[in-house]
């Protein structure tokens, strides 16, 4: 934009040519614009096409190549890692199965052993129990026999005191048996 100061010192091309044309259509500026456009555009084209664009293209290309290579490498690594994970999980599953089998075997063995011991102990205890019961009933029979004899003696003695003569042993035994049965 031309300022007032510029206008006073540097006359517009259009006004100088003797008419106040609309500046973009002022043909008197065309040769200058065309020439400098050709020169400047030509210089730009030369440097861009010969130097800078090939260089930039090369940089971009090598970056693309590098990224593609990196991605390929990363994909290969990923595949390796996946394979390792599968391998690891397989090993883990095998170890777990082994451990379970071992534990089960140990459990079974221990249970069998315990069962055997318990059975032996029970048998032993039952035998002792039976033996003790036999002894007790024998003792009870013996004790009951003794009680009858004592009762008969006591009965004989009591009757002798009461009536002054000793009863017959058979009668006394008969009486004791009758009262014990009652």
């Amino acid at each position, binding site marked *: 934009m031309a300022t007032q100061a510029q206008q006073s010192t540097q006359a517009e091309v259009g006004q100088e040519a003797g008419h106040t044309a609309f*500046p973009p259509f002022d043909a008197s500026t065309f040769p200058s614009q065309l020439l400098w456009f050709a020169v*400047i555009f030509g210089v*730009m*084209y030369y440097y*861009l096409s010969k130097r800078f664009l090939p260089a930039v293209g090369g*940089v*971009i290309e090598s970056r693309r190549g590098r990224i593609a290579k990196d991605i390929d490498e990363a994909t290969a690594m990923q595949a390796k890692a996946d394979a390792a994970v599968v391998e690891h999980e397989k090993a883990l599953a095998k170890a777990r199965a082994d451990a379970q089998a071992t534990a089960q075997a140990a459990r079974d063995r221990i249970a069998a052993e315990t069962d055997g011991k318990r059975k032996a102990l029970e048998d032993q205890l039952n035998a002792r129990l039976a033996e003790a019961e036999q002894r007790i009933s024998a003792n009870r029979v013996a004790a009951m026999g003794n009680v009858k004899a004592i009762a008969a003696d006591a009965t004989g003695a009591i009757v002798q005191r009461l009536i002054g003569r000793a009863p017959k042993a058979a009668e006394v035994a008969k009486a004791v048996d009758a009262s014990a049965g009652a």
Partner: protein
Amino acid sequence: MADAGPAINPIEQFALARHLRIIVGNFDVSITTSTIFMALIAIVALWLMSMTAKGTPGVPGRLQSLGEMAYEFVEGMVRSSAGDEGMKFFPLVFTIFIFVTLANLIGFFPYSFTVTSHIIITAALALLVFFTVTIYGIWRHGLHFFKLFVPDGVPIYILPLVVAIEVFSYFVRPVSHSVRLFANMLAGHITLYVFGSFVAMLLGASAAVKLVAVLPFAMTIGLDALELLVVFLQAYVFAMLTCMYLNDALHPGH
């Protein structure tokens, strides 16, 4: 702006001042404002791309990213519309694209000058494309190039009409190609100037009226945003059309 009511002259921003008078024969080839801004465009473009070219294939810096973004953007545009074969014209399309983008963008700054607001520049660019397409097309395909004007599958009785339309549209291309960019830049800058001037005029008036200046100011902000879009859009459209025209030169058989 003076209180006396300054004349709004949105045209003077397009005027060219001569900074160094050079006359060759009958031609006035002085160095003007346009020359200086074109040189600025070239300096910025070559600086950006030389800095980008120095880059390494590692992680790019900001400037390198910008240059590579431009490169890949234009590369994608050329490949998608003119095919891999079109890449031989990549430097041309890239130069056109960066020239137009920077011309539009630099012109967007206040008190600067928009090189592409002069039709002679956009016409030169459009004719460069037109002649590149025509000469390359004929050199490459010979008479087969003119198959461009004869679409397949058109009934014979309307073929002359279709060919006439095709030929006409082919020669109108440089006009529409150049006027589109030129008119967009011209109109955009005139609109911005007019609304900007309203703000200045209203602020120069009495206190009550000063408040009204908010309206054109808000409008100016909105227009600035729109114009920034137009700056890139028009550069993109210009380069895209260049690619499509080049595609005709490469593959004239539709």
